[in-house]
């Protein structure tokens, strides 16, 4: 079953690192910004590379 993970309150200087991490596990991400902080919505496919479970 695909999973969606939403993480709020991400500072600007952490955005690229988290993007790279999600890419490493085969997820697709969308980013939105509110009050200077980012929210990432990551969709992880059924058998993600980053989590064999």
């Amino acid at each position, binding site marked *: *079953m*695909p*999973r*969606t*993970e*939403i*993480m*709020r*309150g*991400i*500072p600007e200087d*952490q955005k690229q690192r*988290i993007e790279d*991490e*999600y890419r*490493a*596990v085969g*997820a697709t991400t969308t980013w939105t910004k509110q009050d200077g*902080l980012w929210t990432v919505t*990551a*969709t*992880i496919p059924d058998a*993600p590379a*980053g*989590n*064999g*479970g």
Partner: protein
Amino acid sequence: MKTVLLVAVTALALAGCMTDRTKGLFNPPTIHASDDAAAAASIAGQVPVDQYYAAVKNAQAKAATDPEIGIMVDKGVGLVSAYCLRWFQRLDDSQRRFAMQQKDFNIIRDLGTALLGIGGANSTIVGTYGALNTAYTGIAENFNEAVLAGPTTAKIKSQMMDMLNQSEKQLRADAVAKSLTFTQAYNRIELHADTCTYSTVRNLLDATLNKTDAKRNPLTGQISVEVKSEDTFQFDDSSKRLKSFWWTDGAPNRTNEAALNKWLAQNGLASVSIPFFLNGAQFAQFRAKAVKDLNLP
């Protein structure tokens, strides 16, 4: 005449009189149950009930440290588990009986529609048939509304028994460590019994649904479900150490990644991605444990 007969047959079907043939075919008999109250199986089925009430009687005048309190807790836990399992067995039987009744009714309804057309039945009979039809549909909807009976029953049962086990362990531990009085133990057993209820199942389902998103493909009509998790950002010292373990030389170390995923699975976090685990506030304590378990510098 045919329509009157039709209505009578339909009423019989609704009353379940036409489905007795299926009795006993759904599941094997339960080992502690029998239609004959005097049978050994029935007597055995009554054992946890009798033992618990005997234990209550023995414990009620005893001090908190008396072993009889512990025995009452033990028998109470046993009775709750027995009742809960029997409840799920009855639900499973009901689910299958309902499916059979629905099949019978569909045949009768199709036949009835044809007969009403041929006979040119008067409006009263048509109205009665319609009312029965509506009533049956209502029963079906109510039954589905109950949610408990369905393809997910086995999963619900599994989750319920897990919750009961957790509650049981805590109750047994407290009975020993906190020397519960009779009243405290009695109330705790009632609270424990309250775990296996319809409202708990509803709460369980609601919590599960809140964690999922359903989508329907407008072209194919196919429904897909996604698990949805939310958290706020927190990147602490344990996060840094875990990240150093996961990424070496600027890229994921797949061997260490496998080890980390194995740890997640072993700690009930199989459905959590590594980035979410590293950066989510709710996992702070788990991260500290992971650092310790994996002996990370």
